[in-house]
């Protein structure tokens, strides 16, 4: 488990535009101690620039990577005013960071455990990208596979990393410009069928837009495949105080919290129609 969260300042050392409107924002955090040491795939940070009084709350981002030199990165795409500002954050801008946040995280793959099908879409790639990176570093590249969907070929980023790590990748685009035509559930259904035909144990770890997660959840539940969903909900604080990021769940209480109970939830637990 990573250390308890702290709030610290970090400097933008790189804000690299990818295609499709994505950016990889790399920040230099403090060195002693390094706040994100031991960050687990699924954990996130809250980021805010010195934005004055207008944009009052920080924005949540899943950690894409954190390295020994105190640097860490997130994947950005401009959706609203906060993300737009972050996409334009110049080198040397100072941001306020709170993290690492989130207790519910993805389980690491094991040698004899099920094959982990990492199902990603859009800005939901980071926790799965980090999961794949960690798997490869542990010599378990063959235990994870990435299934990645987007609107078009431009919407699929950072694929060369997966190639370099030797991770199998299945792609889908809505316009058919790369991989299967359709949603990521197309290659996912096929992969599950293949697993079932040969008696291979698989599980799903997924992060992406909520409509995609709903479809992945439905498929996982229908096929009896253990499914973990990394959710995104609007949140003001990230550490369990604002109670804005409630997630409807089954169980003794009707709601759990994306920030402190998640962001990763068992698909069976999530109370979605």
């Amino acid at each position, binding site marked *: 488990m990573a250390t308890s969260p702290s709030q610290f300042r970090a400097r933008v050392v790189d804000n690299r535009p990818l295609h499709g409107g994505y950016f990889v924002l790399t920040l230099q955090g403090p060195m002693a101690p390094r706040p994100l040491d031991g960050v687990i795939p699924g954990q996130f940070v809250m980021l805010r620039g010195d934005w004055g*009084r*207008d944009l*009052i709350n920080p924005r949540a981002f899943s950690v894409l990577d954190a390295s020994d030199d105190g640097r860490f990165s997130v994947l950005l795409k401009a959706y609203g005013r906060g993300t737009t500002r972050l996409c334009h954050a110049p080198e040397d801008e100072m941001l306020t960071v709170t993290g690492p946040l989130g207790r519910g995280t993805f389980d690491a793959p094991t040698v004899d455990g099920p094959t982990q099908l990492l199902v990603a879409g859009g800005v939901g790639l980071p926790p799965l990208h980090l999961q794949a990176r960690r798997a490869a570093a542990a010599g378990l590249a063959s235990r994870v596979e990435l299934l990645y969907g987007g609107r078009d070929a431009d919407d699929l980023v950072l694929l060369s990393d997966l190639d370099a790590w030797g991770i199998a990748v299945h792609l889908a685009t809505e316009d058919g410009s790369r991989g299967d035509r359709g949603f990521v559930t197309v290659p996912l259904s096929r992969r599950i069928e293949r697993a079932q035909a040969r008696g291979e144990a698989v599980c799903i770890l997924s992060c992406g837009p909520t409509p995609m997660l709903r479809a992945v959840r439905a498929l996982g539940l229908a096929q009896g495949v253990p499914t973990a969903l990394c959710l995104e909900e609007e949140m*003001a*604080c990230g550490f369990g105080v604002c*109670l*804005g990021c409630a997630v409807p769940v089954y169980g003794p209480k009707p709601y759990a919290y994306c920030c402190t109970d998640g962001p990763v939830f068992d698909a069976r637990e999530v109370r979605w129609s």
Partner: protein
Amino acid sequence: MTAAPRPAASLPLGGVDLSCRFGPLTLPHPVMTASGCFAYGQKFAPFMDLRQLAGLSTKGISPRPRPGNPLPRICETAAGMLNSIGLENVGAEAFLSEKLPFLADLGVSVWVNFFGEDADEYVQCARMLDAGHQRGIDVLEMNISCPNIKKGGIEFGTVPEVAHALTKRCVEATRIPIVVKLSPNAADLPAMAQAVADAGAMGVSLINTITGMAIDVRTRRPRLATTYGGLSGAAIKPIALRMIHQVHRAVPELPICGMGGVGSGEDALELLMAGASCVQVGTANFARPGGALEIRDELRALMAELGIARVAEVIGCVEPLPPEPAWAPAPPDAEASR
């Protein structure tokens, strides 16, 4: 006409005494944290030394636990945010057994915000929380202003006679002093303040969030599941100042705990000058979990710069601007203007 007060010479930081009084309470400084923005305190322990706060107001407590509202519950708006959390809380019993011991150990002023779904529940809650008398609870902050409950809540916060009767019953139900958190949605706030003061309230807190709405034009749906929610943050500070000023003018002996968009030491000083005896920091805690103590430090520095030695000097000190000379069709002659 009195001359505008001239800025006094600056003081060293050590020359500023931040201690202040709120009715019978003595606080080490005027900066507390606000209900609904500080949970039950523990979650801020990684970010700040909680013992340095003047005090805190807990999440609103009801007699029984409440699960809260459907999603979405929050959305950010220009210089503020809307919320409709639905007063989710652990309930009075669990609060007393699980949350209060931690708070009592902090040695700060613990204000327990509470509410009920009807008058009897308010009284029941005050009676249950009375168990915290001299066991850590300094104040019961009676919330008659949350926009996010449905049953009858509106009249408690907007009709002086109803607020008076409810306050009186709660005051009689507990030995702990009651501070009433008034609704900014009331038409006549000074009348509300007078009504609860007459009923035995030790002070008032103002303001709670202001009912608002946001719309997603793409989906043609409200941005909150409950359509309306409470607006907080910098956007509401001018309204807080106006209301604190009005209530302080109308009922000067009634202590006011001010809140509404406090995000800096200057904001805090503005609220004090409008008439608040202490302030609570709310929404700013989300982005800056250690922010309340930074605001205290900023307040100290600003008071030093302005030559203000004690908090009591500035409470309600704001004076009207001097009037301009009366209009006349021609300028006064040189003799008269000299």
